[in-house]
């Protein structure tokens, strides 16, 4: 019997998800022995032509990381959807939009203006911007088109499973591959990670007071965090109560609070809203002015609460004054 075919692909991402695959260390050899990797541009080959030539549905599973930022990424997502029986959104960018999804606070024109004209070291008196097709001495040179809005993979194609995290842990990847190989798969749509909040697994949870209250929020650079005590009890914003577990509390080991890269549990629709209501509920005041003052210490609510999930959130993007297509 031939080995199941697996594809790895990347869209708008940083390469950290690929590194997470490599961090399987010796286990990568087990994976390579058990499956036939037919596409992995970072490591093996980018045979888009070969993938196109494969019969539809002939790839057992395609792991796609990265958000959808340009036309080429969208084309590849559709191609892999056609060719693969299962599509797995791998990592925060693919699942939720990730940090590149914060670009939805602007649009193509705004990003181009900043990057190609306004940035301090850019010298561009003629206002040149990259073009999908440009003429240079009679030569036509092309680039993929850049969308106004970053989308999650699921907003572009049907997705069967997700693996959360920025990046996901090698352990979660190994478990996902094992589940695929054994055929012992959960219902479609499942996020392949524990379905409870990180707080429940936190080493510091016993230091969290029964009735947690906060008089003042602090930013991480303003305080020397106690390495043993619950971050919330120290007045530091920690996304742990709202965030799905499965990361191994890596940031906590670095003595920094959770920033929410694993996204919400299955019971939460608005991740940032859920986190905010949690933070608001522990504010120790009944005075409207005082509450407002305390909450002002969250200076960047969108970037804090939706740092990895703006495109997947009910907010999705900032409303721009002039709306253009896509």
């Amino acid at each position, binding site marked *: 019997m031939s080995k199941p075919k697996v594809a790895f692909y990347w869209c*708008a991402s*940083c*390469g*950290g*998800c*690929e*590194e997470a695959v490599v961090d399987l260390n*010796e286990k*990568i050899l087990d994976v*390579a022995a058990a499956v036939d*990797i037919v596409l992995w*541009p*970072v*490591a*093996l*080959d*980018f045979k*888009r*032509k070969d993938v196109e030539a494969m019969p539809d549905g002939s790839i057992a599973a395609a792991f796609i990381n990265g958000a959808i*930022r*340009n036309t*080429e990424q969208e084309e590849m997502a559709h191609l892999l959807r056609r060719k693969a029986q299962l599509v797995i959104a791998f990592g925060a960018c693919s699942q939720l939009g990730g940090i590149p999804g*914060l*670009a939805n606070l*602007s649009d193509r024109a705004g*990003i181009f203006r*900043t*990057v*190609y004209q306004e*940035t*301090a*070291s*850019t*010298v561009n008196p003629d206002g*040149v*911007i*990259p*073009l999908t097709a*440009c003429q*240079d001495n*009679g*030569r036509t*040179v092309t*680039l*993929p088109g*850049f969308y106004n809005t970053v989308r999650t993979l699921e907003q572009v194609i049907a997705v069967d499973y997700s693996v959360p995290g920025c*990046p996901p842990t090698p352990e979660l990847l190994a478990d996902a591959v094992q589940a695929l190989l054994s055929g012992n798969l959960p219902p479609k749509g499942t996020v392949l990670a524990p379905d409870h909040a990180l707080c429940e697994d936190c080493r510091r949870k016993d230091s969290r007071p029964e009735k947690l209250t906060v008089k003042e929020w602090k*930013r991480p*650079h*303003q*305080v*020397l965090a106690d*390495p043993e005590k619950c971050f919330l009890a120290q007045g530091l914003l920690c996304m742990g109560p709202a965030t799905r577990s499965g990361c191994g509390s890596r940031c906590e080991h*670095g*003595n*920094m609070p959770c920033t929410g890269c694993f996204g919400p549990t299955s019971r939460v629709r608005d991740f940032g809203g859920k986190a905010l209501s949690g933070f608001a509920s522990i504010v120790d005041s009944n005075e409207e002015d005082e509450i407002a003052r305390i909450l002002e210490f969250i*200076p*960047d609510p*969108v*970037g804090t609460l939706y740092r990895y999930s703006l495109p997947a959130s009910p907010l999705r993007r900032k409303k721009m004054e002039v709306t253009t297509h896509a």
Partner: protein
Amino acid sequence: MPEVTERRRITIDPITRLEGHGKIDIFLNDAGQVERAYFQVPELRGFEKFAEGRPVEDMPQITSRICGVCPMAHHMAATKAADAVYHVTPTSAGRKVRELVYNAFMAEDHALHFYFLGGPDFVVGPNAPAAERNVLGVIAKVGVEVGQKVISMRRRLREIMSTLGGKAIHPVLGLPGGVSRRVTAEEQKTFQQVASDAVEFARFTLDLFEKVVLKNSDYVNLILSDAFTHKTYYMGLVDANNHVNFYDGQLRVVSPDGQQYAKFKPEQYLDYLAEHVEPWSYIKFAYLKPIGWKGFTDGPDSGVYCVAPLARLNAAAGMATPLANAAYQQMYSTLGVKPVHHTLANHWARVIEILYAAERLKQLADDPELTDPNVRTLPTAVPSEGVGVVEAPRGTLIHHFWTDERGLVRKANLIVATQNNAARIAMSVEKAAKGLISGSNIDEGVLNMVEMAFRAYDPCHGCATHSLPGSMPLIVTVRRQDGAALRMLRRDSDGSLHR
């Protein structure tokens, strides 16, 4: 297409990723000679824009997502910029912890590049069957125990990063004024052992490079060949003695004839560096501002400059640690010139830098102050503006933030390593193409040469490198301007050629 129907075009698309996907378009004139080659980066994410409005202390974690292969470099550049924004100086121990973790990162990243990506071309051979020209070929040549040594060294160096930074990919230790956690005595002991082993590993690697590459005249001739030579300016961070430093110092630029052209504090970079925009690529092309953008050309009258290992060594007077400095002196006395303009000598420079990173790691791991719990100064001043510069594995990395009085970013400017090199990479690709392509006479030599022109600079394809073996897949299509394909040549990852 009105005017030209006979003009032909060669598209190499896609090659493996350069922080995204890379693409090359080569246009031929009527005589079949290369008229112009475009090295393109077809991707953009726009970090400078969405940094706006975020707290500057979050920049180390947000900007690390620019690159998952060198997240520590972005993390550290942003952390240093945040120091400057808050007008705070890290404590002595905090600074040492940062520099220690940074050198662990540099050693790991460089070693992986040498063994997994760049090394196969030399250790196995540029003309070896492509199927062997990979890390497995390296292991076959040097022995399985060496392969195990490489994998284990990578893991242990990454454990230093995850111990201190929570995660090796997207670490969390950097905060304005220092780091988020102290080093325990037990951890220090582990670090000392890893550092000692890393020094031995680096010496072994240098020895291997000398035996396999320098004793082979074919390789030496290849390194010295004109196809891989460009006479440009070079830039890198140096310490007070003009020795290479990855974490801190001043930026020094030397001219193509080796004279110091400029030496400046990182916060003065806007006086010296600028970026040019082309409509056919999403990447901007950095150049020396006082000289100006003169197009894709080398020499002292062109503002094109180069960064990364060879450029760092060219821009410095030596290395700050004894073994690395001896290796540095040996490289220049062997090649007999300084600066060295041969792009492939980057591989040699990289190995010398592994040795420096390991020796520096050892010095810091042995420092009694490393376990001092005083790892952070709390900022008290009103935040404003700051620049942070480090040497990333692939060259100088600059982060610059302007904030409001609450420390929220108003404006950001980022010059990443590959942008510094973008013009010279484009020139190298064009030179390789011009030297090799004539009419429709395209064979595997073209693919190999183009590939090596990339690889010498472009370890960031090595996002790839920390990974399974395989040669870079290439598809070369010769088209007429109207798009009709005249000829297609494809090389698969197993090295097989299809016409």
